């Protein structure tokens, strides 16, 4: 009896805490955010109903079938029919829920970036982010690991013998224009990191040896924190930077300021 | 640490008869639980367990080499630094030695328990197995003399890794053969022990042929 009530209470508190949104995602600032959040809510609804139903049923059984003098348990080995019904019901329910979500993923990770997407190269290192803009010529210059030198102010190893490299802009924080497709090119120079911006609903490991593209479009301006989401060493918890989402005019101004 | 305890007796304790006498006992009723084919009804630890255990052990070994193989293909396919390794020709001789040892062991197994032919084939197997391991070591030395070490190239890393892993397993088999030889002269060698050891040995032979094909075809 107490156990049943406890289970129900835990269920109630959990359900209220989820539904009340006391702790929740920050508002989305990316074009795919609404779909992603929607998929989360759908999943929360479905699993929430299953969660409450299962826990309530568990508590009910504990009260209803508590051992009492004179009670007789039924001798049943089960029912194949019920077995088939709930197996297929679960399968249908869960797959119906999961399948539509795959297209959100495909939009974000499989579709090619539009040709006019703004490319920014991000290089993770213990424990900082390096953001590289191609500069006025629109081309990323050559880099080489031999030239990487934090103390000399060349963390990504720009090779200044390449003319395309001379105007490249390497910064510890970044800014992007709102409502323009962005393509991040994610790299790492030492261990695996993960580029995570909550408001933009993006996360992608930066893997040494690979260059991984990540495409999105920001829909709201603001300043957001960039976090590292993959254990990368003792400074993992302070591997932080900022991304400013600016209006097109502000962005151009920012770019001009930074290039000086 | 394990040696503090006596070695496992291969010959089992005297077969125990079930006290409940002859007959197969009452047939299990249907409808209660799930009747069916009937279990083993082992009176003691049955001998069949040695073959079962060996097959399962081989399955475990297969997984180890499966992981190595997939790592081989992934590492080879994803990189631009893979340089094919020129295998020392001696490996072909070694391969012949090992295949031959499987043959001699099979002859030994078939001639069991006739003492003379059994002993002859048995000793030949051990000699061939030992020669194989010595040959593998020589092949390593040849490669090292040519300046090819474990960290020279991924292809050489895998070569040393695969040959060493195989050699460790084969050395275990050779150890079993020697241990059984001791039992042969001391008395107490059983057909079962010979059979299970032969299964392992044949498997190691097959594994080596597979590794050879891997190293030759996808080098």
């Amino acid at each position, binding site marked *: 009896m107490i*156990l049943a009530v406890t289970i129900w209470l*835990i269920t109630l508190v*959990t359900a209220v805490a989820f539904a009340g949104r006391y702790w929740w*995602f920050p508002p989305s600032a990316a074009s795919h955010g609404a779909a*992603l959040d929607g998929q989360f809510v759908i*999943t929360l609804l479905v*699993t929430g109903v299953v969660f409450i139903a299962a826990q309530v049923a*568990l508590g009910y059984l*504990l009260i209803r079938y*508590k*051992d009492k003098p004179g009670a007789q*348990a039924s*001798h049943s*080995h*089960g*029912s*194949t029919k019920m077995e088939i019904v*709930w197996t297929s019901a*679960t399968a249908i329910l869960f797959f119906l829920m*999961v399948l539509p979500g795959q297209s959100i993923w495909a939009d974000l990770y499989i579709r090619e970036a539009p040709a006019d997407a703004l490319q920014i190269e991000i290089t993770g290192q*213990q424990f900082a982010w390096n953001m590289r803009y191609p500069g006025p010529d629109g081309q990323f210059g050559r880099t080489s690991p031999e030239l990487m*030198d*934090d103390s000399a102010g060349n963390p990504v190893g720009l090779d200044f013998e390449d003319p395309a490299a001379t105007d490249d802009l390497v910064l510890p924080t970044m800014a992007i224009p709102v409502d323009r497709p962005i393509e991040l090119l994610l790299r790492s*120079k*030492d261990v*695996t990191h993960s580029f*995570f911006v*909550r408001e933009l609903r993006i*996360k*992608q490991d930066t893997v*040494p040896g690979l260059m991984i593209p990540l495409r999105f479009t920001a829909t709201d301006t603001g300043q957001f*924190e960039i976090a590292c*989401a993959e*254990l990368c*060493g003792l400074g993992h*918890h*302070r591997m932080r930077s900022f991304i400013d989402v600016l209006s097109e005019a502000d962005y151009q101004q920012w770019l001009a300021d930074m290039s000086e | *640490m*394990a040696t503090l*305890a006596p070695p*496992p007796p291969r010959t089992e304790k005297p077969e125990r008869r*079930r006290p409940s006498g002859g007959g197969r006992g*009452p047939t*299990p009723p249907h409808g209660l639980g799930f009747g*069916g084919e009937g*279990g*083993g009804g*082992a009176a003691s630890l049955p001998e069949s367990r040695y073959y*079962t*255990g060996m097959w399962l052990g081989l*399955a*475990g*070994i297969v*997984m180890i080499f499966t*992981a190595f193989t997939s*790592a081989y293909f992934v590492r080879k396919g994803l990189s631009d630094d893979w340089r094919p390794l020129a295998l020392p020709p001696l490996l072909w001789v070694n391969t012949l030695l090992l295949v031959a040892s499987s043959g001699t062991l099979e002859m030994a197994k078939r001639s069991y328990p006739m003492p003379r032919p059994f002993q002859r084939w048995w000793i030949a197997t051990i000699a061939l197995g030992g020669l194989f391991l010595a040959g593998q070591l020589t092949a390593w030395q040849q490669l090292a003399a040519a300046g090819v070490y*474990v*960290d020279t190239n*991924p292809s050489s*890393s895998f070569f040393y890794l695969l040959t060493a892993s195989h050699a460790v397993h084969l050395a275990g088999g050779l150890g079993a053969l020697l241990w059984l030889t001791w039992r042969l002269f001391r008395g107490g060698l059983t057909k079962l022990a010979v059979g299970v050891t032969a299964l392992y040995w044949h498997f190691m032979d097959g594994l080596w042929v597979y590794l050879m094909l891997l190293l030759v075809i996808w080098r």
Partner: protein
Amino acid sequence: MSDTHAVHHPPPSGFIQKYVFSKDHKVIGIQYFLLALFSVFVGMALSILIRFNLVWPGTEVGLLETLFPQGAPGGIMTPEFYLAMLTMHGTIMVFMVLTTAPQGGFGNYFLPIQIGALDMAFPTLNMLSFWLTFVSLVVLMAAFFVTGGPPTSGWTAYAPLSALGEVAGPGLGTGQNLWIISIAIFCVASLLGALNFITTVLDLRTKGMTLMRMPLTVWSWFVTAILGLLAFGVLLSAGVLLLLDRTLGTSFFIPGGLVVSDQMIDHTGGSPLLWQHLFWFFGHPEVYIAILPGMGVTSQILSVFSRKPVFGYRAMVYALFAIGILGFMVWGHHMFMSGMSPYSAIAFSLMTTAIAVPSAIKTFNWLGTMWGGRIRFATPMLFSIGFVSLFVSGGLGGLFLNQPATDVYLHDTYFVVGHFHLIMGVAAIFGIFAGTYYWFPKMFGRMMNERLGKIHFWITFVGVNAIFMPMHFLGMVGNPRRYAELTAFNFLSELEGLHLFITIAAFLTIAGQFIFLANFFGSLFKGEKAPVNPWEATTLEWTVPSPPPHDNFDGKLPEVHHGPYEYSLPGASKDYVMQTESASRKEPV
């Protein structure tokens, strides 16, 4: 003890052979259990440090400096010490507790008895498995005492962080090497154990013990052993490759052109993702290795204490196999954000969804078992009910993480930490507790204290919900996992209250575990003498004395006539029918 017994199967004489290097599966089972008990308290102590540092970073504690002069200079924990504790917590809990206690402990002790065998198929190998596990634990613990301390790369040891050595961070030198060696030894021990378990089930069943008459505990140990046999070899291989990268200069996992702390790394062309694939090919089956025995114990106990047959026995067996097989095809769901092909992410996602189906079958059938029963609320039953509740809570959390779209946000946040602790941590531990309270009388001949058991249950059940449910909220706010301190980010400051709540709940829950410890050791010496069959259960272990004699059945192997769950059979004299009862006495319905 009869004379025939002494002739046929003499028990060993001498302390060492009887209790230390014993080949008796029962002694080995208890050894495994005690090893896990020691480890779980070490692991819990580490979680105290972890939770403490998250809430009160930079606090000076004199005791810490005495204990860990390297990790807490001046009594203040360093971030690398936090990561070392986190790595050791995960490694100890996953390998030394969740893998050993349910399988090596209870499986060893009760599998042979439940199928009517004298011992495991290979007693010497069994002994070797345990002692290798012991050596593995010793090697792992040694990492606390070497320069640089334990590794800081997490229990998943992602390369290249784990492959580069000292240059990438403290603990990644000697500590990481010891970690790999420990895990490799553990793999060998587990492989030997797995083949022993499978052989025992296949070849040593007594007369009448058909496959479909085996208790579900035996089925779960059997499937777990199959998973172990196929998974641990892969981890062993991966460990060997990692060790070669670290010591002999090979480049399996380390790509070219790395610059760590302004130092060029002399490696070329390796693949960090290769490590992740190999690790998770082992790692995902491993979580089923941890939870399946708990499912078996729960099925067993729910039936015994509901006085009803297991609902859908065959479906339960098939579901175990379905989970086991699918468990090998879903490892990629740990890697959605890793840079793996986005197409394969979809395949892994759908495969993972498929696992929810057999899991749901199990849940339904547990409820079905209680439905129409006469439920007796003894401590083992409480923990089994808790298992079902936690399995539901934890399992449903998985449905957010198996979808790559929602996983984009939730991956590597506390949502994941909450999810896996609920299901493979706490639910599995509830299975272990249920098993302990259930089988203690048989193992040690005395009953555990029921009142203390219930207090322990209440604290633990409420406590773990209070610890791990709120972690989902942390994840929804975006709190990344494995952060030593939460001070560097603005958005984490709003979570201080929730973190404090979790820490307090954790401390209270951990305190409650000492009630269990007191109950365990107190009952060992002072407990009420246990009868042969205190729970009125039907399986074979309840036909022999408590504790059982050296060869389990005192020279007379049992003959089985019934399935394992014949409760409340209409017309029977009592409400349960032992598996050994002769069939002639009653007619099947």
